[in-house]
């Protein structure tokens, strides 16, 4: 018998009775926060990542400050060019950069699809302006530009909003602070393999 058929037969023979009640989902689907943007900033900073808040006119300057002298910066296709500061040596992923090429780049500059206030998380679905997954992984500094209207309350709202991306087969990367480990004596160390530094530039939305 083939493995597939045998496993399915074993499952059937286990003869598990159907559940006597439907799944109880009494947890909060949305969360009411007095100041979602403030919560987001506080929680991102809790992970030792930095946040710079700016108006729409100050993005390039905030990005320049966040890049902290990094010269060679990968900028994915579709990223808002008005947010790229002068004097940056923009590296394009066209033709596709090899992993070794990426390893030689100092920083990466992207947008994101949303931010989660309660957990201080940014999520990338790797569409326009965010690049393929390796771009935000190999360089040691990740600067991410997010607008305030992209911030949702908690995980259930984020999961709901990300559903179309998943249905379209796109990968997701959820980032909560810089790469970290507590594997040695439970002491938190930043930057094992992912970017050692995460900086978020948060842009005021016209409506807020």
């Amino acid at each position: 018998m083939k493995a597939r058929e045998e496993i399915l037969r074993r499952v059937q023979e286990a003869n598990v009775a159907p559940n006597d009640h439907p799944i109880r989902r009494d947890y909060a689907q949305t969360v009411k926060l007095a100041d979602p943007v403030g919560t987001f900033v506080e929680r991102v900073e809790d992970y030792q990542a930095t946040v710079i808040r700016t108006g729409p006119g100050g993005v390039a300057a905030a990005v320049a400050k966040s890049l902290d002298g990094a010269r060679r910066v990968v900028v994915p296709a579709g990223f808002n060019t008005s947010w790229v500061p002068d004097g940056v040596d923009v590296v394009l992923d066209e033709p596709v950069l090899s992993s070794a090429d990426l390893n030689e780049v100092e920083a990466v500059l992207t947008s994101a699809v949303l931010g989660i206030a309660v957990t201080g998380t940014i999520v990338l679905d790797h569409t326009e302006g965010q690049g393929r997954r390796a771009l935000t992984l190999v360089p040691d500094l990740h600067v991410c530009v997010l607008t305030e209207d992209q911030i949702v309350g908690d995980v259930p709202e984020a999961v709901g909003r990300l559903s179309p991306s998943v249905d379209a087969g796109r990968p997701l990367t959820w980032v909560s602070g810089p790469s970290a480990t507590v594997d040695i004596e439970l002491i938190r160390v930043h930057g094992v393999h992912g970017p050692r530094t995460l900086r978020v530039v948060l842009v005021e939305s016209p409506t807020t």
Partner: protein
Amino acid sequence: MSDGRMIETKTFLGIPPFPVAAKEALADSQLRGNMHHATHTIRTKRARVTAELPDWEQLRVAGADIKDDVTANMGRYLVQLEESLTKAGANVHWARDAAEANQIVIGIARRHKVDEVVKVKSMATGEIELNVAMEKAGIAVWETDLAELIVQLGHDLPSHILVPAIHRNRSEVREIFMREMGKVGMPAAADLSDEPAELAGAARRHLREKFLRAKVAVSGANFMVADTGTLVVVESEGNGRMCLTLPEVLISVVGIEKIVPTWKDLEVFLQLLPRSATGERMNPYTSTWTGVTPGDGPQEVHVILLDNNRTKVLADEVGRQALRCIRCSACLNVCPVYERVGGHAYGSIYPGPIGAILTPMLKGVGVSKQIDSLPFASSLCGACYEVCPVRINIPEVLVHLRELVVGSHRGGVPGTLMTTMKGASWLLGGGWRLGLLQKAAGLSTRVLWKNGVIGRMPPPMSRWTDARDCPAPPTESFRAWWKRTDGGRNDAGSAGGTAGKGDQR
């Protein structure tokens, strides 16, 4: 290329039964100190971040219900998952047992003519001892999680689900890196200190060249979404992202119980898991992928659906709740037994309370003394049940497994336990019998007890006293005291000198 260099992997084979292994572990004061610090630190963090969510209990209920829905409809969800994965461009394989899963991984690696793979920390691949099988096949496996790297380079065994090298301190880690890294790749710097940040830096440099050249990666998954074919890996360091993103071929070995029915269900588990595991609001990185994404990440994706006796657990009406487990390790961190003896004494990749139920069910009771000892490695205090994010009633399963273990050994002849219990029922059934015994005990234990406790007793009682100190009975029983003093109305001092300290404990 690995240039034929690889690391010989240690296995749990030959670990003695729990009481013996625990005794050895308890004598190691360094280990006890490390374990105490680790378990208390994580449990405090967990308590803080779970208290932040007012709907934590409702999330636990939902988590348990979703997983019960999976166990009740496992066949349907497996077929649905297979369809979704295939549609998304993934290759789906089914493995009845460890050997079959290992052969599939080796076959894929050979087809790509590689002699090395990079690997994300995964419990399932530990369970099937993939590394040992790969080494035998001449393929080097590089563990990329920092703790797994420490364990692998130290020719050691993991001792915790989440932080497997927690039994090592910084100077031991430094020593291992200095001695071993150069044998299998980029050596550690000669002036490496034992600062955790520097040690992590050494791991980063050592592994980066392996990440950049690897063609094949092996991972597990925390969740598989049946309706979309999406796999999820939750991690902290970014080594997972490296393995899931940079190589050309990705092979994921995943237990069939890792299914969740819908994408929406992750809104529950992505709250439960990080808060229960590391005590963070969210772990640094969560990756999700759905088969192959053109132009992004591995262009050849394999998923191996692993049974390896999970269907046996499924068939156990009491025990099947263990299949809800999301491997957070919260139960380890609150367990008074685990805290004192550490992970190795459990003789399995799954230590602590969850290991004490999972290992016997996955490997079967009545086949090995070591495995049969595990359901007894607990005081049944219930702390594990209280913290479990998917409400696995571990004490209930432990008691159930104790019955199975005892039953498997009886084979018609009443065991010592049964004989003892029958004797106890005869004694306690008549007051005068108990009175006589207590009088005898008061006299006889003066010979046996020391510092108020009874230590080792001769067989068959040694089976109880080997692992437990028993408070010595007082020199006068309550019944005798009542009779002598007329219920306390006429108490002119105690009868037989000072009572053993045991009765004050």
